[in-house]
């Protein structure tokens, strides 16, 4: 399933790619594929901005403004300020946990 097109903040510079294949290994949406020893983007609109690829790219070839794609979290952050997060690990035990 695909979400809105042309919104993802995913950016990839293939000249920095060393071809380690970590991005292919970690992306749960199949955004990356290996092609001639370099990573290649298949369809960037599949990206859900989880940030696993950027976190595991040692060559700074990938950047993405990662965060939770969750309306409740984003509305909360609009009201209370700060980054949207789902509050799952709060020790207070939020009942509206993702």
């Amino acid at each position: 399933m695909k979400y809105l097109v042309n919104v993802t903040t995913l950016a990839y510079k293939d000249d920095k790619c060393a071809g380690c294949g970590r991005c292919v290994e970690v992306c749960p949406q199949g955004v990356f594929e290996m092609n001639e020893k370099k990573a290649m983007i298949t369809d960037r609109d599949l990206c859900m901005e989880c940030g696993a690829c950027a976190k595991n790219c040692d060559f700074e070839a990938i950047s993405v403004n990662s965060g939770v794609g969750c309306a409740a979290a984003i509305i909360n952050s609009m009201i209370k300020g700060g980054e949207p997060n789902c509050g799952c690990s709060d020790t207070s035990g939020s009942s509206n946990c993702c």
Partner: protein
Amino acid sequence: MAYIVEPGLYAVGSPTKDSDVFVTANYKLTFDILRRSLYQIDAWILVLDTKGINVWCAAGKGTFGTDELVRQIRLSKLDSVVEHRRIILPQLGAVGVSASQAQKITGFRVFFGPVDARDIPAYVALGRKKTKEMSTIRFNILDRLVLTPMEINPAMKKFPWFALAVLVLFGLQPSGILFSSIWHPGMTFLLFGLLAVLAGAFVTPVLLPFVPFRSFAVKGWIVGMAMVAGAVLIIDPLPLHNMLLLVSVYVFFPALSSYIALQFTGSTTFTGMSGVKKELKIGITLYATATAAFIIMVVVYKLKEWEVI
């Protein structure tokens, strides 16, 4: 809470110094799924302290993260338990774990295994290689169906407030709150409120890929509109013979369904933050406008009823 597993190193079957090490979260259901998937495999399980939260959510928060992984590898003295230097993490943990940093500090090479623990036997048999299916998240109709109670529940928690407002509003008479007049248009509006919850929190999530357009707000509105129109046609409630109330129902309840459907973005496996922000940017104005218009129409209806205007 009884859903927490003590962090640390566990054995499944009779693992040796050469057996694989699987890392997981200390949410009991997660741990149990992994254990069950390792049936007939001798392996080690290293449980991180994620405060009883599943891998994906904990990785997003950073509790299933590089630091905690390093800490548990040291605490469990993993380097003296196994002779090899490799650990297998769930793929969805990659959001919180930098494989190269963990390796630099501990010497253990991180392999991100399949998304779904059930694919572990096949992954091991392939020599720690994943097929494309193993590394992509599935989100089929059953996955969505089991999530719907988590959508209906928070919506229904707010429902009493909506019910109270509706009943007070319709019951209000110049002489006070009249109970006999509460039920007449009031019940109809409560029914449509429930219908909007059903449309946004159940029907839209379950039928997600079959409802046109990518936007969750639009999907929710379409389903809400269809159900409201269907109910108006089939039930033909008497209060809605009043034009003002009929219009107010069409303005408000599909919008309510849309808002509730938008909440489902928090449960999906494919919605990103930028997309949801874009939907909210446009959506919130529309929802506020629809709600204001709805209240104005109902108030005008009441004033007419009281023959004030």
